[in-house]
């Protein structure tokens, strides 16, 4: 048993038992972050704050929501939106945050790709981040079922149909996932469970892994410079804060993070109060009707690019392309054969690859929403082929890259 002395203060009493000074040192004051960074490095904090907003608003929604096919729609649109004080606020915060969180995730991802922050020891950061992307996607999809509107129902129908695996006609799997021949009570109940329990638990676990994965390789910096963290930290601790190439997580890095969060929240709350239709699709304010398809079925904007990769092909090839799109980002650290972990603009052809990929995914996103007719389906097909082509080309492009 450790040796305890009579506490000199409350702080000392707690410190002897929980070691909070050590925790503070390890997690904040001596957790070293490179100084040479820009606001894109604050996206992690922005995501953490958005996740907190989702969690808190979700807790209040959960207290009035009823996972029953007969009452779900009214419990959201009548009870929460009309009766509960500030119920509308929680719902708008929840709905808008669910959409905006993906915007920030995509910015975070493309930042990582641009600065090469997925290689030379940072592979696990990338992979755990992609796991978060997948769990967030599942969380978003399951949450979208809950208001039991027309888009909930039909998105549920179309997406669960994907599990029949096209030509294999595995209808048994589809019925097993739904617990019924069509999305109905069992389906709503299990997606409710996934949304409020299992997936949030998984997300929190993977967030821990993601943070943990950062610890050993450290955060990357704007120029891909390899820092000697111990030497720079010693400089900082010796009082040469100006000369040191690192800063402490708290309060140095955090003060910048929170300023970025402040700017982000201005944008976020503007959307919550004055511009929410993009995140709360009007079609979903019609109650679910299994015998009436909406004129246009499309997923939320953040799934559109992968939906468009599915769509222009025949069922089986479409499913394969879709499966390819779901896993390929995980493999990025291994498909990039270049040893350079530096910004894309100094990597020759890869720079081209980066911007082409970004533009292509935006084109896919746009075409995924537009009706698949005429020129739009042609553009969609070309963009889907370009997407696959770019990934196939990546190892060759990066292999030929010279060591910087």
């Amino acid at each position, binding site marked *: 048993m450790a040796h305890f002395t009579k506490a000199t203060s409350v702080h000392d009493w707690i410190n002897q038992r929980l070691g909070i000074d050590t925790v503070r040192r390890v997690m904040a004051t001596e957790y070293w972050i490179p*100084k040479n960074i*820009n*606001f*894109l490095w604050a996206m992690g904090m922005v995501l953490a704050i958005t996740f907190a907003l989702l969690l808190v608003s979700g807790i209040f929604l959960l207290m009035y929501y009823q996972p029953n096919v007969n009452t779900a729609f*009214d419990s959201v*649109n*009548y009870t929460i*939106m*009309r009766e509960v004080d500030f119920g*509308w*606020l929680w719902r*708008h915060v929840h709905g808008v945050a669910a959409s905006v969180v993906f*915007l920030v995730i995509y*910015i975070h991802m493309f930042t990582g790709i641009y600065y090469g922050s997925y290689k030379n020891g940072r592979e696990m950061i990338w992979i755990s981040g992609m796991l978060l992307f997948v769990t967030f996607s599942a969380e978003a999809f399951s949450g979208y079922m809950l208001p039991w509107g027309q888009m909930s129902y039909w998105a549920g129908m179309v997406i669960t149909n994907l599990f029949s695996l096209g030509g294999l006609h595995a209808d048994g799997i589809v019925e097993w996932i739904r617990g019924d021949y069509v999305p109905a009570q069992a389906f709503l109940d299990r997606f409710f469970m996934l949304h409020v329990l299992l997936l949030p638990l998984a997300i929190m676990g993977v967030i821990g892994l993601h943070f943990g994965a950062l610890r050993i390789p450290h955060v990357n910096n704007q120029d891909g410079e390899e820092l000697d963290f111990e030497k720079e930290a010693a400089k900082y601790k010796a009082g040469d*804060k*100006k000369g040191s190439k690192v*800063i402490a997580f708290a*309060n*140095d890095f955090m*003060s*910048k993070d*929170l*300023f970025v*969060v*402040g*700017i982000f*929240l*201005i944008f976020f*709350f*503007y959307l*919550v*109060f*004055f511009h929410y*239709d*993009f995140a*709360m699709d*009007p*079609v*979903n*304010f*019609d*109650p679910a009707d299994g015998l009436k398809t909406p*004129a*246009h079925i499309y997923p939320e*904007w953040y799934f*559109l690019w992968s939906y468009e990769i599915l769509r222009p092909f025949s069922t089986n090839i479409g499913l394969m392309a879709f499966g390819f799109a779901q896993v390929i980002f995980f493999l990025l650290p291994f498909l990039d054969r270049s040893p350079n972990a530096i910004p894309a603009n100094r990597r020759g052809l890869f720079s081209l690859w980066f911007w082409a990929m*970004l533009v292509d995914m*935006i084109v896919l*996103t*746009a075409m995924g*929403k*537009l*009706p698949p007719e005429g020129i*739009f389906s042609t553009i969609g097909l070309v963009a889907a082929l370009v997407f696959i082509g770019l990934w196939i080309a990546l190892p060759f492009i990066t292999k030929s890259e010279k060591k910087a």
Partner: protein
Amino acid sequence: MKELFILAVVTVFTLATYYLVEPFAHSKMHKHVESEKFAYADLPALTKKGDANRGKDLVMGAGACTGCHAIKVAGLAAPMDPVATAQSYGVNTPDLSNAGVVYDAKFLAALIKNPAHALKVEHKYDAASGKVHPMAQFGGAGGDLDQEVADMVAYLQSIAVKQDKLTPKMAFETACGRCHAMKYENWTQIGDKPSFKMKKDELAFDIQVIDYQDALTKYMGKLPPDLSMYIRSRGEHYISTFVENPQHLIEGTAMPRVGVTAETAEKVIEHLADAGDTKRVERDEVGKKVMVFIVIFALFAYLWKRSIWKDLH
């Protein structure tokens, strides 16, 4: 400054994506119809000045309006209850008490002369189908038809409440409420649903509603939807242009042109907003306060950051 340049790049790509998936995609998916400001330009203008007294005689007498319509303000009850009426004609006949304020005068005149034409449902009652609109055309009481119609319209206007006394709920009930239920405002097609002490009475009422809806479904081809959430699912512009002329947005729809005035349409929409977007005023007010707060929050965050980073640069 480099950070501002990066911010500009992120903003441009974000806005491009937003533009493509929202305004652009929706402009391709949904037909856009401009409002005609409820002018009903296809209907002839009223040329004669109506006389309310003569109109009263026509409405009560030769026009035979009261054979089917109630006029409660004039002390005339409906000849049949709503369910029996719907079973005979397909839908309950409107009480004419406020018709003069709810409906456009030109529209009323055209309706009296040729209902299917004014309502724009001639595709349902063409010669080939052999069906005729349940409201009989008024062929005149022996005098000048235009004058007689103008007199009847003048009478309806004289008995109606004044525009400023017409509440959004009244406007909705008169113009929409015989076909559309509105669960969130407790409205059924046969009126407000009362609260019952006895389960049996409640069930009896519900059965009446179902009988009415069955007759209505037969008449319209499908049951007209509940409008509780239409303000969020369709939006103000769509509702307004749809009410003005349903055929513009959904060709061949069974929904008739309602013929309301622009003021009434606004009130109908206000009622829909009360039902489906009840907290909109609170949302705007809270929104403004939160925006002010969050700007102050960001400002203080900036000042704090600057004070800390002074030592670092």
